[in-house]
Structures are given as structure tokens and as C-alpha cells.
């Protein structure tokens, strides 16, 4: 269980979050809805341990993250995946991007060894090995050597977002929607316990939005907890199990999706959901 308990965050003299508490368990989707600038991104950054709260506790399975040592926090961070509003892909191939999370989880010895093997095994040599493999009756498309597990994870993650055939493309050749799908695969590849999605479809067309929403459902079904920050209430209604409504720097209402949208306890929530609350 991942939770924020009474968290307050300020930026200079301005209060961004005030006494916010939310929790998300494995295999559920929590949508954090609210207008732009209300602190949804700060809430996700706080959960991601990128922002240290002024007050309150960020707790993962009972451990207060900021009271623990740096090593513990790194361990916690490595249980999280995050997708931003922008894809923020590295200037490299899709494969290099998606396997990044897996690479940083390797020891330096494995990483240096892998890099040296990658340099020594030229494309020509790899091609020759594949032809040799095909000649002796093997699968010529099978990955080589110790990178097999990583390749499989990369291909599975890309498959979830319908980009399995794009592994060898450079990110510069991707459309905005494809780039965001790759960013989603990148966060999924190392099988995190919690996915943090910061308005991941706000710049996408309906088709790419649908792919991402399906991927969110797949992640949930495989036991991953998801926190989705969005100002798209229809999307929250479609994908979330529970909703937290963030207004005026605080959570004014939280509960099952149907209840929040159909029978909100708070007048401000009713107005926001009805589009009557203008910020």
C-alpha cells in the first residue's frame, strides 16, 4: 500500500498541497482529478519521492520513506514507474529507452560488461550469428546471450502498448502518440508495483488515448497500482476504481468512482464534475 498522510508542500511562499492524504493499493486505479494548477503533478512528484513534503509522511508498505536512508528510498523509487505529460524520451532507439529502467537496476559490473559486449558485437557479427543460428535450425530472431531476459521484458512492455514492431526505431521518428506509448512501455518494462501517470493522454488523439487506457487496465489486471492525475473526468470515469478530487490545494472528496461522479458528498465536487466550478 502506498500512501500520503497529511502531506503539505509549498513552493516559496505559495502552498501547493495542504494536508493531503491519499492511498492506493496494488491492482487498483486511483484517479486524482482537479483543474490545472491545483497540485496534481506535485502530488505525483511527492509520491515519486522527487519532492520532499514540508509536512506529513510518504509511506510505502508501512515504511516512512523520508525517515529511511537513501538506499531504502532508492529501493522504494525502483518500485515505481512514472509517465509524464510529455514523453521525455531519450535521444536513442525505442529499445534503449524501454530497457533503461532494467539497465539501471543491474549492478555496475553487469552494465559495463553488457556495454562492452554491445560494442564488440558489431551489427555485422550479430547478423552473422543470427544466420548461423537459422542455419542450424534455431530461431534467427531470438535475442543473443545474457540480454535475453531484458529483451523479452522490452518486447512484452512494447506489446502492451501496441509498439512491439518499433523496438529498433529511433525516437526521433515517432509521432507524439507513439512516443507517449513508448514512455508508458518504458515505465512498465521493469514491472513496477505502482505506476504514476501525470496526464499522460492530454496531448493525444482518441486512438492513442484508447491504447493508453487499455494499457492502464492491463497494468491493473497484472496487480500494479496506478495513480492517474487527469483533468479529463470522462477518462477518470472510464478507467478509475476510485477517485480523489483535488480542489484548492487539498483533497475535498474521495471514494469509489461511481459514487464521486453520481452522488458526490461535497457541493464543490458536484459543481466541478458538472463543469460549473471555474478556476
Amino acid at each position, binding site marked *: 500500500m502506498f500512501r500520503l498522510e497529511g502531506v503539505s508542500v509549498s513552493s516559496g511562499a505559495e502552498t501547493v498541497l495542504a494536508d493531503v492524504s491519499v492511498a492506493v493499493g496494488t491492482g487498483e486505479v486511483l484517479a486524482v482529478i482537479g483543474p490545472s494548477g491545483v497540485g496534481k503533478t506535485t502530488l505525483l512528484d511527492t509520491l515519486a519521492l522527487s519532492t520532499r513534503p514540508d509536512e506529513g509522511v510518504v509511506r510505502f508498505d508501512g515504511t516512512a520513506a523520508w525517515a529511511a536512508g537513501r538506499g531504502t528510498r532508492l529501493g522504494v523509487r525502483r518500485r515505481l514507474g512514472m509517465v509524464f505529460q510529455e514523453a521525455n524520451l*531519450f*535521444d536513442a532507439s525505442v529499445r534503449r529507452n524501454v530497457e*533503461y529502467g532494467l539497465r*539501471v537496476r543491474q549492478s555496475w559490473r553487469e552494465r559495463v560488461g553488457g556495454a562492452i559486449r554491445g560494442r564488440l558485437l558489431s551489427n555485422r557479427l550479430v547478423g552473422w550469428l543470427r544466420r548461423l543460428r537459422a542455419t542450424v535450425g534455431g530461431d534467427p530472431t531470438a535475442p543473443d546471450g545474457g540480454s535475453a531476459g531484458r529483451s523479452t521484458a522490452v518486447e512484452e512492455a512494447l506489446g502492451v502498448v501496441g509498439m512491439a514492431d518499433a523496438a529498433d526505431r529511433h525516437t526521433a521518428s515517432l509521432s507524439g502518440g507513439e512516443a507517449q506509448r513508448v514512455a508508458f512501455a518504458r515505465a512498465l518494462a*521493469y514491472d513496477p508495483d505502482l505506476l504514476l501517470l501525470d496526464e499522460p493522454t492530454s496531448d493525444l488523439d482518441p486512438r492513442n488515448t484508447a491504447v493508453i487506457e487499455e494499457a492502464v487496465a492491463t497494468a491493473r489486471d497484472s496487480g500494479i497500482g496506478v495513480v492517474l492525475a487527469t483533468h479529463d473526468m470522462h477518462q477518470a470515469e472510464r478507467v478509475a476504481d476510485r477517485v480523489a478530487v483535488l480542489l484548492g490545494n487539498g483533497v475535498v472528496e474521495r471514494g469509489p468512482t461511481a459514487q464521486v461522479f453520481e452522488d458526490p458528498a461535497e457541493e464543490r465536487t458536484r459543481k466541478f464534475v458538472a463543469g460549473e466550478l471555474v478556476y
Partner: protein
Amino acid sequence: MMGPGLDTVLLGPLLVEFPFEATYVRSIISVSLYVSLIAVALSTLVSVPVAVLVGLSDFRGKGVLTSVINTGMGFPSVVVGLAVLFLVSNQGPLGALDLVFTKEAMVLSQFVLATPPVTAISLAAVTGVDRGVRDAAHALGGTRVDTALVVVKQARYGVATAVLAGFGRAISEVGSVLIVGGNIAGADGVSKTRTLTTAIQLEARQGRYGTAMVLGAVLVGLVLVVNAVVVRLGGRGVGG
């Protein structure tokens, strides 16, 4: 009265004035490359980590430090040469190392000259990397070192440009290497501390314009080759 033979007329200038020209030119190229490449390699080892540290950190005085680094690009080379000569002279703090008029002293002065441009241009490249890329590296579980490596890879074209600028400054520099190196060639025609630039200056002053032109062409050719190599290495797709 017998005049000089045709072969003497044609080859005389080469045979008489430069009986060891090939060796001479080769040794000058060798000294130039040795001094410049080692100085730039050392400068890169220092400058890139400094640029990453400064670029990725927020601290009081960062603006002042950046200004100092940028100002360093305009250091007059003769002043640097003078300072390094003082450092390595018998009375200087490094006097015990007996470095006066050696290639090592020249490396030291070129290092001092190359470091500001390499640092400043690397810093600009590092700070130009999209903040979102750093955030992504961190959010994907990267440590500070992982994030710094991602930033350097993303800034690789800029870092390659920085290295080129440093190499350009080092290999085309005259004043400081003349002061700390002494522009020495042995009686056997082998350069001890004579570089392409100091040799060009000497040959032109002595009226041997042909040799000076050849050395100038070699210098330009070397810069072009090193440019091509660094751009090739810097442009290799290794991101992420």
C-alpha cells in the same frame, strides 16, 4: 668557371637547408599531437564532470562560477604561458620537477588554456538538456550518477563540440608553448618542444615560406581529421 649542377640547383634548398626535413616535420607533428591531445584529454576528464556538477546542481554563487568559467575562455595565452613558466621554473612551486622547456610543461599550459572552453561549452550543452529527460531518468529508478550519465549522453554533440574547441585552442596556440617549451629542435633535426605553430612562426621569420606553408597545411589537415573523428564519436547513437 663551373656553376652548380642542375640537381643541386633543384634539390639544393632541400638537401642543404633541410637534410632531415621529413624527420623534422614528423617530429614536429608528433610533438604537436602529443601535447595537444594529452592536454585536451586531461582537460576533458576534468571539465565534463565539473560541467555536469555545476549544470545539475543549484547552489549559491552558481551564476558567479559560470561567469568565471566563461571569462576563462578569454585568458591571454602568453599570460598563461608566463604563469606556467613561473610555476615550473627553479624558484616556482613545481621547480623540483625540472619541467622547464619540456613537453610536460607545454601540456600543463595547454591544459590551462583548453579547460575553460571545454568546461564552458560542456556546461552550456548540459544545461541545454531538457529537464524532462533528467526527471525521466530519476523517475525510472536512476541514481544521481545514472541521471548524470543520461545527461552527458544527451549532450554528447555539445560535449564533442567542446572537446573540438579545446583541441582547436590547444593545437593552434603559439604564445604559451613558445614561452614554456622554448621552441627547441635538436641538432639532429628532431623536435624536442617545437610544435607546428612555433615552427611555422620560426620558418616564416627565417624566410622559409615553403616549409611554413607545408606545416600550415599539415596543421589545417590535422584539425580537420580530429574534427571528423570527434564528430563521428560524438554523433554515435548511444543515448539513454
